[in-house]
């Protein structure tokens, strides 16, 4: 969680932390979270009215700009363009990443083949690869989907791999002693036991995927949300620009919360109230 926070703040997604610590999502009253958001909006409003900067709109102006962008259709259109490579990249990274991570965790040779690459990729400032991706794949969907994937994939693979390697050995032996097949042990024991760490990786990976798509739309070709940000910045429509930025932060946050919900629902029901 600390890593998620560090990473999201590093790219300016500080709203993520304002909404609350996801670990406690089940037991904190909704009320406290609303207070947290209200407090943030209030501080923003005051900072905008001082004003902190000529280019810093108030919260209320930003909110109005958001409704204007929704009403004139430019934001829905932008999201329609952004979501395609984003969803495609995130879904591919999820399945590919978890699959590869499982394989590396369960199979020694796979581990030696693949893990060093992902360790390097995770350490590398992968945003620097984006011009290279453009060079090879042009400026279309493929390049943008790849931009999402090179950011999202390494952390998903590495977390899944570590989760599988650190699975509770005693449960695996239990599965064997009750005559479970290898496949049953993997699906009924290893996967659920590893799921908290896998999901931690997925949350980091999905957040990184959002970074990837915004970078791609700012660096490769201005389309979708990236275009909307660039366009309103060039016209000095700061309220519109902030509304766009805030909307993608909010979407990223909601996606992560949804992921948490799936995890508890499907894999770890015992954490539901705990």
């Amino acid at each position, binding site marked *: 969680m600390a890593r998620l926070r560090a990473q999201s703040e590093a790219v300016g997604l500080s709203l993520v932390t304002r909404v609350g610590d996801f670990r406690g999502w089940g037991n904190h009253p909704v009320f406290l979270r609303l207070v947290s958001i209200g407090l943030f909006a209030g501080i923003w409003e005051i900072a905008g009215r001082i004003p902190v900067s000529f280019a810093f709109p108030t919260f209320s102006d930003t909110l109005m700009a958001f409704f204007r962008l929704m009403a004139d259709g430019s934001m829905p259109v932008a999201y329609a363009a952004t979501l395609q490579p984003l969803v495609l990249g995130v879904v591919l990274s999820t399945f590919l990443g978890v699959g590869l991570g499982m394989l590396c965790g369960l199979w020694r040779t796979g581990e030696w083949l693949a893990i060093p690459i992902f360790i390097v990729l995770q350490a590398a400032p992968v945003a620097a690869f984006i011009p290279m991706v453009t060079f090879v794949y042009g400026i279309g969907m493929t390049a943008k989907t790849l931009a999402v994937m090179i950011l999202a994939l390494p952390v998903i693979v590495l977390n899944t791999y570590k989760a599988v390697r650190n699975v509770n050995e005693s449960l695996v*032996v239990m599965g064997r002693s009750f005559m*479970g097949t290898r496949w049953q042990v993997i699906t009924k024991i290893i996967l659920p036991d590893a799921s908290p760490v896998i999901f931690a990786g997925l949350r980091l990976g999905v957040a990184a995927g959002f970074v990837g798509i915004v970078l791609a739309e700012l660096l490769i070709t201005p389309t979708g949300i990236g275009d909307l940000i660039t366009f309103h910045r060039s016209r000095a429509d700061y309220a519109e620009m902030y509304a766009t930025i805030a909307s993608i932060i909010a979407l990223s946050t909601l996606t992560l919360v949804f992921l948490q919900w799936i995890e508890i629902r499907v894999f*770890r029901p015992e954490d539901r109230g705990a």
Partner: protein
Amino acid sequence: MRIVTLQKEATPVPESLESIVEVRGISKNYGDVEALRDVDLDFPRGKLTSLLGPSGCGKTTLLKIIAGLVKADCGTINVDGKLVSAPGPERAFVFQDFALMPWATVIRNVAFGLELRGVARSEREDKARHYIVEVGLAGFENKYPHELSGGMRQRVGLARALAVNADVLLLDEPFSAVDEQNRRKFQEDLIRLRTNQNKTFIFVTHSIEEAVYISDRIVLLSPRPGRISRIIEPEIDRSGDPELIHRDGHYLDTVEEIWQGLKQYVE
């Protein structure tokens, strides 16, 4: 009390008892450490046999070899006359650390052995419910392991082993992670439970009192290398109140006798 054998050359089992598990010439090394050396042992059907000894005597290793979870370097295991080398339906294991799936409810944990065998959900849950009652956990079917005490968790482990209806139950220090009060209650319940279940129990423990309290037969193992030093049959009458056994003179004498024998191995 009857001392069946003092030397391992003597025949380990009296002719009258039919043995269900036969261990022949089992040796096992872990690197340079000789865990077991040429162990021959028979476990009589329907009895509770304890493997007792100080740490490092290979008792858990022997149990895991019988379970088919650890491969022996040489020697054979026969269960019901059939040679075995992997886990089988006639054996069920109870783990020292319970090995319960934290994400599964009590009933799913108990039914898990049947789930792995592809038994239909309603059928396996009916069976699981029966054994949950049997081990005294009625009403806890839908709790998760973290909501239970150590003793209750091990009852789940025992119910899971009972549910697959194996002839031989292998228990690896099942009470060592259970607190003292719960352990005593559980031991009493185990004595009661045995009278309803026509099963063979092989029980690993390092507690002399526990072994004497519950066992029909105690196999004393000596450490480094692990081999059989004595076999003792406590011959304690357990038909009455299990509470009274702790004050029985015969029980106390047997505990003392075993302690004198094991003392030499304790640094």
